[in-house]
């Protein structure tokens, strides 16, 4: 359904001629119809840039993006217009991604009007009511403004807006990070119900490894602009191969005080290097406990080590 090949996105650095932020540097993955692919990684790893480049909010520096068999990498914004309904995004902060001066029915009807499915909010009322009910809001909510809702309800409005055009692919970029724990589960269950009913394909991006593992069929781990490991969600916890993935897993606190859940060893030392001048060879080598000479000179390629488990590390046999 979605195929991304060698995606590169560099941003210029203001005031420094020639300097570039290597936000995404050669990312490759595909997602089957009805599948959820999770992307995890810490801030600055490029996961949100991947999302925004895939929907062409950002122009890719290089690479190829294919949506349901159509190459959309270099389509003009005008050519993209008929494709837009097929790929939608749910953002992190429902408060800032909803126009505070518009009522809920105006917000949710906006994509319908932009796509010329309907000509006015009034004409779209039935469709809006239907989708609002599907996300657990009622028609009484239609005339209200975003500030009258709680964070969880606002995210439901954001989801209704993303789903009203019946997209094939939905990208959820930290869609639950700003919500309270008890409300996160509501939103996750809602997204999963829609997937069951409509066969939606999800790219689910978050820093919460446990949540990503819970919702995804496969998980990709990113570090400093590159994918370092990609495999089945069960496999990522049972058999993580990349030293970064292993460290990341050790750092996740477990809500269980029993001694068997405790992990002794420290996770990863140090801070993320600058993406303007990333380390040569393997980008993780400056923090990697296993790094050898080769890691500084040769960029490790992603390779399949069996059963679709891909990893980019010189030290994995």
């Amino acid at each position, binding site marked *: 359904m979605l195929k991304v090949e060698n995606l590169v996105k560099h941003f210029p650095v203001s005031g420094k001629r020639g300097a570039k932020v290597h936000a995404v540097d050669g990312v490759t993955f595909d997602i089957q119809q009805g599948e959820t692919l999770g992307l995890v990684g810490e801030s600055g790893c490029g996961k949100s840039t991947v999302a925004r480049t895939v929907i062409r909010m950002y122009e890719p520096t290089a690479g190829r993006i294919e949506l349901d068999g159509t190459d959309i990498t270099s389509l003009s914004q005008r050519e993209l217009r008929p494709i837009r309904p097929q790929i939608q995004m749910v953002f992190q902060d429902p408060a800032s991604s909803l126009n505070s001066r518009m009522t809920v029915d105006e917000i949710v009807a906006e994509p319908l009007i932009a796509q010329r499915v309907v000509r006015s909010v009034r004409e779209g009322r039935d469709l809006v009511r239907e989708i609002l009910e599907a996300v657990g809001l009622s028609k009484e909510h239609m005339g209200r403004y975003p500030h009258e809702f709680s964070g969880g309800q606002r995210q439901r409005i954001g989801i209704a807006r993303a789903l009203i055009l019946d997209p094939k692919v939905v990208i959820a970029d930290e869609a639950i990070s700003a919500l309270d*724990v008890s409300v996160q589960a509501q939103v996750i269950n809602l997204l999963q119900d829609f997937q069951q009913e409509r066969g939606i394909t999800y790219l689910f991006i978050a820093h919460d490894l446990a949540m990503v*593992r*819970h919702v995804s069929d496969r998980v990709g781990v990113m570090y400093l602009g590159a994918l370092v490991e990609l495999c089945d969600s069960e496999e990522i*916890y049972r058999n993580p191969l990349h030293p970064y993935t292993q*460290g990341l897993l050790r750092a996740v606190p477990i*809500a269980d005080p029993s001694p068997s859940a405790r992990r002794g060893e*420290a996770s990863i030392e140090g801070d993320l290097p600058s993406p303007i001048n990333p380390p040569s060879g393997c980008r993780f080598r400056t923090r990697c406990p296993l790094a050898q000479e080769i890691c500084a000179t040769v960029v490790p390629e992603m390779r399949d080590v069996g059963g679709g488990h891909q990893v980019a590390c010189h030290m994995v046999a």
Partner: protein
Amino acid sequence: MENVLEIDDLHTSFFTRHGEVQAVRGVSFSLAKGEILGVVGESGSGKSVTAMSVMQLLGRGGKITGGSVRFGDTDLVTLPEEQLRDVRGARISMVFQDPMSSLNPLITVGKQVQEMLDTHTQLSKAEAKARVLELFALVRIPEPERRYDSYPHEFSGGMRQRVMIAMALACDPEVLIADEPTTALDVTIQDQILRILRRLQAELGMSVVFITHDLGVVAELCSRVIVMYGGTIVEEGTLDEIFTHTAHPYTLGLLKSVPRIDGDRGHRLESIPGSPPDLLDPPKGCPFAARCEFARNICSETPPPEVRLSETHTSRCHLLAQAAPSENNPFAEMRPAHA
């Protein structure tokens, strides 16, 4: 065990143009010497306002409307501002979620920590600088000498939080209140900071109040837990009591709604329906009643009394009363004879 801090029936409100927001509604707990107490709750539960009330840092519109905060022999609520200043930052200190907004961008980090010592101690300039370098080493800031002259923007989020911890520890406080200090950080950096806090607590014997929404962090760090909801404490107990002998429906719901990294996949998360109560007009019964799957008529009518389940474990839930029916009651077996 000796208590360093005793909070009794604390009420704190914010007076806004919409009316009185009763953010903390009768909170009582104590902090024992040398323990790490976790305070868990979601936004609006009153956990941060409780901490701010202890420090008397409520800002405009915020007011303690009842109760006491005993620190040694003194009640901080009635202490004059001048004397409070000797306590705040020196004997009780605080670390916040966002280190960038707590640091002055125009002053080097070394100078900022040193200012703390200038205010609260009699150390000479050279002694104070030596102490700052010692503190930087303590929180594992690499190359303290060189880093002393750095500005906050030259530091990563994790390094800035280390500076804040160094500042909080500068005057050897008896109590450290940490309000979501790792929430804005990546998990690997959070792990580094939690390890530093755990080591420092053990070495220095401080008492710590650790406020968080993350049950995982609580399990990693704390020995005792308070669970807050709607401006009240709903459950209090040791780690084991809260996690494995859970006695409040809200705690139960929280534990079930987070997926575990080591757990089974494929099942549906059990979410808690609805959203927290509006504290402009707090519910008259149990604050959780409207979202509770076990709620009965009494729950929305009468505030639940505190039921003691062990020397360390208490819960405020009508389901724990002897008279409560056994069906649809997850705590039927736990009901104490006296309740």
